[in-house]
C-alpha cells in the first residue's frame, strides 16, 4: 500500500519538476524563471522528504532544511536585484 503510494508520489513530483524545468527554459520574462526556480526548490524539498520515507532514514531532513533556507535567500536576492538594481544597498 505504502509502496504503491510512494511510487505514484515519486512519479508525480518528478513530473512536477519536469514541468518546472520547461517553464525555466521557455519562460518569457526573467521573473517567470525566478518563479520556476522558487517552485523547483520547493519540489526538491518534497522529493527529499519522499526519499527519507522510502529509505526510512531521517538523514535527508537536514538537506531539506538547508535547501529551504538557501532557496528563500536566493529568491529574495534575485527579486531584490530586479526591483532595485542592487542586492545590498
Amino acid at each position: 500500500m505504502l509502496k504503491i503510494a510512494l511510487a505514484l508520489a515519486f512519479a508525480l513530483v518528478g513530473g512536477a519538476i519536469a514541468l518546472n524545468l520547461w517553464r525555466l527554459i521557455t519562460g518569457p520574462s526573467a521573473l517567470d524563471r525566478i518563479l520556476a526556480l522558487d517552485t523547483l526548490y520547493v519540489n526538491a524539498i518534497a522529493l527529499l522528504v519522499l526519499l527519507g520515507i522510502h529509505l526510512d532514514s531521517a538523514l535527508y531532513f537536514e538537506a531539506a532544511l538547508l535547501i529551504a533556507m538557501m532557496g528563500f535567500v536566493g529568491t529574495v536576492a534575485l527579486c531584490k536585484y530586479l526591483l532595485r538594481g542592487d542586492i545590498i544597498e
Partner: protein
Amino acid sequence: MAEYLLAALILSGGLFTFIGSLGLVRMPDFYTRLHGPTKATTLGVGSLLIASMLHFSTRESGLSFHEVLVTLFLFITAPVSAHLLSKAALHLRLPSSVRLPRLVIETEQNDGQVNRP
C-alpha cells in the same frame, strides 16, 4: 490503519505538488502563474511533511517533531517571496492578460507615465 492514512497523505501531497506545477506551465500570464506554485506547493509539501512526521513517529520510539521546522519555515517564507515576486512584476510592468481598471489608465495618461522605469 496508520498505513492507509500515510498513503492518502503522500498521494494528496504528490497530487497537489503536480497541480501547482501544472498551473505554473498552463496559466496565461505571470500574475496568474503566481497562484499555482505559491498555494498548491505549500499545501503539497505540507501534507508530505505531515506524512513524514507520522511515519517517523510510528517507526521509532517517541514522537518526531523536527519536520515542523521545515513546515514552519516554508509557510512563513512562501508568502514573503510571492509578495516580492509580484512587487517586482508590477515594477517591471509585465503584461497582464486582463485590462487595467479604467481609473488607473486615466491616471497614467494624466501623469504622462512618470513611474515608468
